[in-house]
């Protein structure tokens, strides 16, 4: 759970990088490549945002007590950090020239 947020970030990075190199190799039209990248990144962002919301609302079970609330705090903040990281690392690139 502690790594979940950043695993999604890692998936976003890998998917974007692979899509981009496949698109450039097979000469997809610029618009289509840009659109597919945008959709892939937004899908990951949506997933992160959804999890963030779900975890922020969830209550940890009483049996874990302090440890449970500590873990929940850490999970929520890793999700937030992963959301910001995904947006910061992947979105700006969408404005750049695609294949040179």
């Amino acid at each position, binding site marked *: 759970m502690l790594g979940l947020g950043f695993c999604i970030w890692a998936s976003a990075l890998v998917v974007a990088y692979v899509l981009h190199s496949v698109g450039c190799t097979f000469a997809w039209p610029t618009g289509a490549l840009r659109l597919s990248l945008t959709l892939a990144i937004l899908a990951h962002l949506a997933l992160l945002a959804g999890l963030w919301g779900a975890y922020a609302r969830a209550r940890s079970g009483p049996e874990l007590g302090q440890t449970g609330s500590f873990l929940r705090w850490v999970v929520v903040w890793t999700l937030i950090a992963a959301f910001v990281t995904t947006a910061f690392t992947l979105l700006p690139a969408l404005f750049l*020239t695609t294949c040179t």
Partner: protein
Amino acid sequence: MSTLDPAGPAAKSIAHLWWVMLAGAVALYALVMILFALVMMRPGWGGMVSPARWIVLGGLCLPGIILTPLVAHALMTGEELLPGRAANPMRIEAEAQQWKWTFRYPALEGAETVGVLHLPAGVPVDIVVTSRDVIHAFWIPRLAGKIDAVPGHTNVLRVQAAAPGRYQGLCNQFCGMGHSAMHFDVIVHPAAEFSASLAGSDEAAAAPQ
């Protein structure tokens, strides 16, 4: 060979980026060290600010405020330096091998020079870089950044020299015994005289490095 003494637009914009970053870095370094000195020398001074605020202000806000415009600026600078933006400039092929550079000029039927690169002044040129054996890197520090010469791949670097003159180029990726000496000369001619002067420099074409 100084990158801080640029002689072309690419090197110039990168040098500008460097000076901006240097100023920011000096300020940030001073900030951290002054904070460190204060918390060590004046116990209780930093206790007025809550721990959470220390971390949020210093760990999140400070880098956020600095990194966002810096990344944006650097990406825009990078875009401007890319080849393929201006309409079809002249292409020159640079082929690296252990341990010399061979330059071919397709625009000037079959012209070839070894160890000396001829460029026209004031116009962009795309250097198409590849290698015959191991990985090398093509670099003229005063004109532009570098690009690797990778066997099996071709890379393109946009180069432009502002004025006629002589410059130094070198191999910047470790390539074996002769790496240290794998230099080349760059001779920039006035654009109007470029093809004539290249045709006239037969000795350059023949002489191996």
